[in-house]
């Protein structure tokens, strides 16, 4: 701000002009930043738009009833069937296996770290868990197919080379760090006064953890489980590599089967013309996937609201 008049002070009009320009610049910057923030909303709108519009074209050709009730999934055959249950069964079975492993193990690690481990162990363990959580899923896929499956076959000789079981187990290992880390955060947020109350009654550590800390942190635990479910349902590469990609309506984890996600990968690997029914199929499958994760997320938010901690 240069003021060259005799008194060496800016005139009132000068100052106002300066302020006006400054305000204008501030507003412009704020608008730009707001624009950046709305990108995330645009992303959501884009996802909904793409999935719904392509699925709309898909459902012009395939009835919703068939989509939900048909027991075959052969979209690329001459005799095409579009029974999404086939893919959903693979998704649910593999996710079930994963969560059966990840929820107990993640919770145990969280309780151990938050209530038992001394601070040094905790400081060491958290980064290790983070590293485990950062391993690319394709590497886990490799691990499932070429390391875990042979080990499992040693115990279960009838297990085929591709199976929901081995993909599910590795998926579970992948999810453990998320559940452990989020649950631990939730438990550590439980105020110390609550624990002191329990200890003052003569409880042991485990009793305090299970009967006081876990119930107090239940909404955070639920949130971590929901995130785990979202991860499992949306996981792609482990299944594409290790579970086989043939559609198979089964509830048996010992069998190979395609999931919603691995089907999308399989189609994308091929060369489907834009606008063909095969192309639209993957969007219908994607919409189904998004709906499933959405249901779990709404459930999670409802649980959180219901059991919101009031310490």
């Amino acid at each position, binding site marked *: 701000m240069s003021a060259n008049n005799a008194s060496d002070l800016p005139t009132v009009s000068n100052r106002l002009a300066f302020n006006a320009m400054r305000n204008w610049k501030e507003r412009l910057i704020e608008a730009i*930043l707001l624009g950046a923030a709305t990108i995330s909303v645009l992303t959501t709108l884009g996802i909904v738009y793409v999935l719904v519009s392509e699925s709309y074209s898909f459902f012009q050709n395939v009835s919703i009833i068939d989509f939900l009730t048909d027991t075959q999934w052969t979209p690329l055959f001459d005799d095409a069937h579009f029974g999404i249950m086939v893919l959903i069964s693979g998704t649910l079975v593999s996710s079930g296996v994963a969560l059966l492993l990840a929820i107990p193990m993640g919770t145990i690690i969280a309780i151990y770290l938050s209530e038992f481990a001394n601070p040094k162990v905790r400081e060491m363990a958290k980064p290790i868990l983070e*590293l485990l959580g*950062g391993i690319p899923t*394709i*590497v886990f896929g490799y691990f499932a197919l070429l390391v875990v499956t042979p080990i499992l076959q040693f115990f279960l000789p009838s297990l085929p080379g591709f199976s929901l079981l081995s993909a599910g187990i590795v998926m579970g290992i992948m999810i453990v760090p998320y559940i452990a880390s989020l649950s631990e955060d939730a438990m550590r947020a439980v105020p110390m006064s609550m624990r002191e109350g329990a200890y003052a009654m003569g409880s042991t550590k485990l009793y305090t953890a299970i009967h006081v800390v876990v119930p107090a942190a239940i909404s955070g635990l639920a949130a971590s489980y929901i995130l785990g479910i979202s991860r499992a349902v949306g996981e792609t590469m482990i299944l594409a590599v290790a579970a086989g990609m043939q559609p198979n309506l089964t509830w048996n984890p010992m069998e190979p089967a395609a999931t919603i996600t691995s089907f999308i990968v399989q189609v*994308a690997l091929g060369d489907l013309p834009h606008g063909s029914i095969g192309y639209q199929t993957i969007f219908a499958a994607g919409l189904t996937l998004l709906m499933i994760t959405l249901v779990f997320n709404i459930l999670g938010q409802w649980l959180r609201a219901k059991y919101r901690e009031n310490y």
Partner: protein
Amino acid sequence: MKPLTTEQIRAVIAKGKFRDNLFKAVGVFCLAFALLVIVALIADMLIKGSERFTLDFFLNFASRRATQAGILSAWVGSLLVMLVTALAAVPLGVAAGLYLEEYAKRNWITNIIEINITNLAAVPSIVYGLLALGIFVYQFGFGQSILSAGLTLALLILPIIIVATREAIRAIPAMIREGSMAVGATRWQTCRYHIVPYAMPGILTGVIIGLARAIGETAPIITIGALTFIAFLPPVPFSEIDGGATAGMFDWVMSPFTVMPIQIFNWTSRPDPAFEVNAAAAGFVLMAMVLSMNAVAIYLRYKMRKNIKW
């Protein structure tokens, strides 16, 4: 009920302590198991892939013969995609985080943005692939290019960067802001000269974690139709290309490409076991990239916690 005798109380306590110790053992076992998996993964790939760790492996293109196949196009592709991702995601993410922490008024627009960011983090990555296939590849006509892939991954990691930025900004005490405003700085000057520089280490940590996530992502890139067999590199700016023409500054962004995870996927799914060796070696290289990025981020965060005392 009569009051318990001392012996009875001691028996109850002994039982409780036994359970404590049992649980401790289970907890340690679970943690050790997690550690074991990491070690087993790395060791398996390192041992199986060891015969491929030659210079040729890094400088060869993909090939039908396992022993001659290398990862040149894959690692170059990964680096270029990451460049696009970082250039798009970092400014957008930091700007969005800055807006939400420093500018946003508590109104419905802010609410929608915040709820939206939380929910986006739970959207499966393959759905981003479908978004990109519909919008970037076909609607915008970017095709199956480095640009499409980079932008897709940028959207994918945007929530990570936004959240990291917000957390870093939130850790800055109000007195810094007040001090700056008190000497007449505008909001933007406060952000530019105080908030962003002080939040930098936290933002950087988030950026590295985001990029480490992006470099390992496979599904969305397969979905937009990245090729699995690429035996050429994207054109270097101003280099000569076929027919004597000169490549433009940004021609490479529109080039077809492959990336490390796709190369690994391709090798893993081949029936010929010779390619398992390639998959293991490439997997090890990818793990090394991802883990070292994560390690840098963890170290940065650790140092930050030690250094900064307001």
